[in-house]
């Protein structure tokens, strides 16, 4: 909430800190993306495989 009013000021005062903070968030975003992909495309449980079967084949994820 506070961020929305002071963001621009913080960014100009400490750009390197803002970038470092951004990097952490980017890594977190990429990891979240990978975890979701692994769940849909690679999870070995039969139920996960059956629910996502046609998607796995369509993306050419290794299946069966």
């Amino acid at each position, binding site marked *: 909430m506070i961020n929305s009013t002071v*963001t621009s000021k913080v960014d100009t005062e400490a750009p390197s800190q803002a*970038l470092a903070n*951004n*990097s952490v*968030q*980017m*890594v*977190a*975003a*990429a990891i*979240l*993306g*990978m*975890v*979701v*992909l692994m*769940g*849909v*495309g*690679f999870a*070995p449980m*039969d*139920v996960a*495989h*059956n*629910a*996502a*079967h*046609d*998607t*796995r*084949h*369509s*993306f*050419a*994820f*290794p*299946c*069966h």
Partner: protein
Amino acid sequence: MFRSMVLTALGVALAAGLVLSAVQALHVSPIIYAAEAFEIAEPEVVAAQTDGHSHSHGDEAWSPSDGAERIGFTVLSNVLSAFGFTMILLACMFVARDKAQLNISWSRGVLWGLAGYLTFFVVPALGLSPEIPSMEAAVLEGRQSWWILAVVATGLGIASFVFLPGIAKTLAVVFLAAPWLVGAPQPEVHGFLHPDTQAVATLESLQAQFIYATAIANSVFWITLGCLAGYCAKRFVKA
């Protein structure tokens, strides 16, 4: 920033996932269903050999019933996959912006989408071709490991080529070559083990169609996803 990325990715994933679902329903799923018609005949052979015990998937595991339920879960899986891809793509876009001053826009997004298509579909599919049900393939874990290796190496290869300066770009060759030096796992028997030669001919024809269908569906999906991700990242992500 993280929150606005997740919300943006959800919107992009919903749109790109629905576009994929439409192309898939028209051109990809019919081939999967047609191939499965031959797969159902197999368990009887296995059942006879193994004292009535059923095939490898087991009877117990839940699976969506054909029709609306199956399509519904496929659409959901498409959207979730699209969300995963979008989060990775957005992270790459912002890192490239912060570290290499690369602007974010819908037109740059199309290039990001093409990079995603090469990384997540084209290169892995060159080693492990898209398969229809009932096709013989190598052990699953080996193929999954090679798929991940191909994706990571290709992604690093493209990034090295685009972002590294001068002679360092040659590092891209090392990354791009790595999965091929390891080699994609191959099955002992290629093709289909169906006893009927007519059925095998039909399955081989379906397999050839499937490669084209998935190549087209994935290209439409990735260009849509990249374009939307670029547009929405510029417009909606606070950073």
